[in-house]
């Protein structure tokens, strides 16, 4: 798995609450059996003026000039700034795949939906929860200052602003460990294979109908 250690990059402000995973990557792109190539369809319905189809050449599609992702000043951004309950709805991991493919490495929001948050960790994307006032302040500063960039250090659990001031953030130690080291979850769990087998044996004796 991809690791996350540090990220310095432009901030993309998506000023909208309850962004759902259908909004992040619409369903027609879920027909792909691959894990890559979703970046060009990230936020497809808001980003383009026409209806997108899988395997389409997006370079010729009409862009929605009002949508923040299309504004020249945010091109190349790697840190997404979002509002509450980001990533709600469907469990599609295509949402973090699309964000990753587009170049987003970290997301800052007041809250995230559970399944999406988990899916991000599996893809080396850092989700940072900050209180609403701090997020609001970051929105204002991003809008006010062209080229606004943040410097995120996961080891130190800090975000450094352009003026040098720092914001600290919480991260669960196990998730931090996995992200910093880009660990293979399945490999880690397989280290407990004997425990799983022992549990399975006990469980089978207690609930034989589950193994019939």
């Amino acid at each position, binding site marked *: 798995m991809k690791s996350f250690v540090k990220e310095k990059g432009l901030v993309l402000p998506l000023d*909208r*609450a*309850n962004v*759902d995973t*259908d*909004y992040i990557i*619409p*369903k*027609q792109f*879920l*027909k*792909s*059996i*691959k*894990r890559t190539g979703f970046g060009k369809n990230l936020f497809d*319905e808001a980003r383009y003026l026409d*209806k997108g189809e*899988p*395997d389409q050449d997006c370079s010729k599609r009409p862009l929605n000039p009002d949508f923040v992702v299309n504004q020249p000043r945010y091109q190349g951004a790697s840190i997404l700034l979002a*509002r*509450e*309950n980001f990533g*709600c*709805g*469907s*469990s*599609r*991991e295509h949402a*973090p795949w699309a964000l990753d493919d587009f170049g987003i490495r970290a997301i800052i929001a007041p*809250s995230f*939906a*559970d*399944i999406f948050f*988990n*899916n991000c960790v*599996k*893809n080396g994307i850092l989700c940072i929860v900050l209180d609403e006032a701090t997020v609001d302040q970051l929105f204002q500063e991003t809008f006010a200052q062209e080229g606004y960039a943040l410097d995120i250090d996961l080891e130190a659990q800090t975000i450094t602003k352009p003026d040098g001031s720092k914001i600290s953030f919480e991260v*669960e*130690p*196990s998730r931090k*460990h996995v992200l910093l080291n880009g660990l293979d*979850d*399945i490999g*880690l*769990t*397989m280290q*407990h*294979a004997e*425990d*799983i087998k022992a*549990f*399975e044996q006990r*469980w089978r004796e*207690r*609930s*034989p*109908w*589950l193994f*019939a």
Partner: protein
Amino acid sequence: MAGKTLYDKLWESHLVKELDNGTSLIYIDLHFLHEVTSPQAFEGLRLAGRKPWRASANMATPDHNVPTTTNERSRGVEGIVDPISRIQVKTLDDNCNDFGITEFGIEDSRHGIVHVIGPEQGRTLPGMTIVCGDSHTSTHGALGALAHGIGTSEVEHVLATQCLVQRKAKNMLVKVNGKLKPGVTAKDVILAIIGKIGTAGGTGYTIEFAGDVIRDLSIEGRMTVCNMAIEAGARAGIVAVDDKTIEYLKGRPYAPKGEQWEQAVAAWRNLVSDADAVFDTVVELDGGEIVPQVSWGTSPEMVAPVTGVVPDPASAPTEAKRNNYQQALKYMGLEPGTPITEIKLDRVFIGSCTNSRIEDLRAAAAVVKGRKVASNIKQALVVPGSGLVKAQAEKEGLHQIFIEAGLEWREPGCSMCLAMNADQLGQGEHCASTSNRNFEGRQGFGGRTHLVSPAMAAAAAVFGHFVDVREVELH
């Protein structure tokens, strides 16, 4: 010491071991797979040279991306017109063959929406842990199982290890007291709950639904309620086991038999929260006050009673909510103060893992019977949840009622709930839908969804606009 909640009991019984940092290794009894969120997981297994830990603990069916017209379905997988969809469905067939996983393919009479066929087959059992790469896996909690959606990386993880690394959620009790008024259904109950606690109200919790109203619901109705727990932010929703649960499961193909049945029932009787269990949060509603619900916006929390009006953003409690309401009204093309019954409708969809079971179709047919689809409705789809639901409905003559009224009778699948197949709304069209999500574009590019119960959707089809189904005479 305080007693245990049902969720506590389910969690503890599946605890393989506690890991560092507050995570636990949890054993998974049953894993459902479908064509959309599994191909990358199987590919991952192949690349790492891994095999399923316990192939028999998996069950697959293609549902999200299958056509629903009889013509296209009559030629099986090869008959799927869209080549990208055909590859995806075939890939599931191939993966199940390669890895020894039971699949109900689209030509199998038992095929259907994964969350409909699991309980229908008795594959879903009380006391199980169940996961699937689909957020509506919470449906299975209606039978006293701990069930939730996962992403594709976790699909691969469960295939390889039969376990997940998890953090225990908090306990929330949602108690619906009293008695529902006639014409008010499970769908109205869950929409009213989401309207009250909000789309993130259950984030970080497992919700146990309880109270007299929940006890009075059929198992199908409880599935409708648990199905939409995720729409309140909770990954899992559960209902305690009672006589109805056991009665529902008895004799189903995969349910235990003989001596094991007796043994299982004895164990299942314990799957209730202890009387002295403590919940982190308790929410209570009076079921007698719930009226049929209609969503007016782009989040399932944006609901109003059918007797109400589209709200004014100025009345929203916070500025953030005001912005949400404004964005939603703009997308929906609605003006504040418009009576819900005056919203213009273009299409009707009766189906999805929320509302495509036999009792849903019976409720819809009862309203439609002796009436015709209104002239302004371009299309009204009825998509049964499974081949067996379809067969049962046809045995009861429900399909004739729908067809005579001008509704389309389709083959099972997810269909217009997420509109991955050809069943889609056109831009700007309004749809009365029995599905679970009214997000922007969910049912088609620019489409506008109004979430309702099957009876409300059926009434909308024949009257051409929302009506209070409590006032509709049944023929």
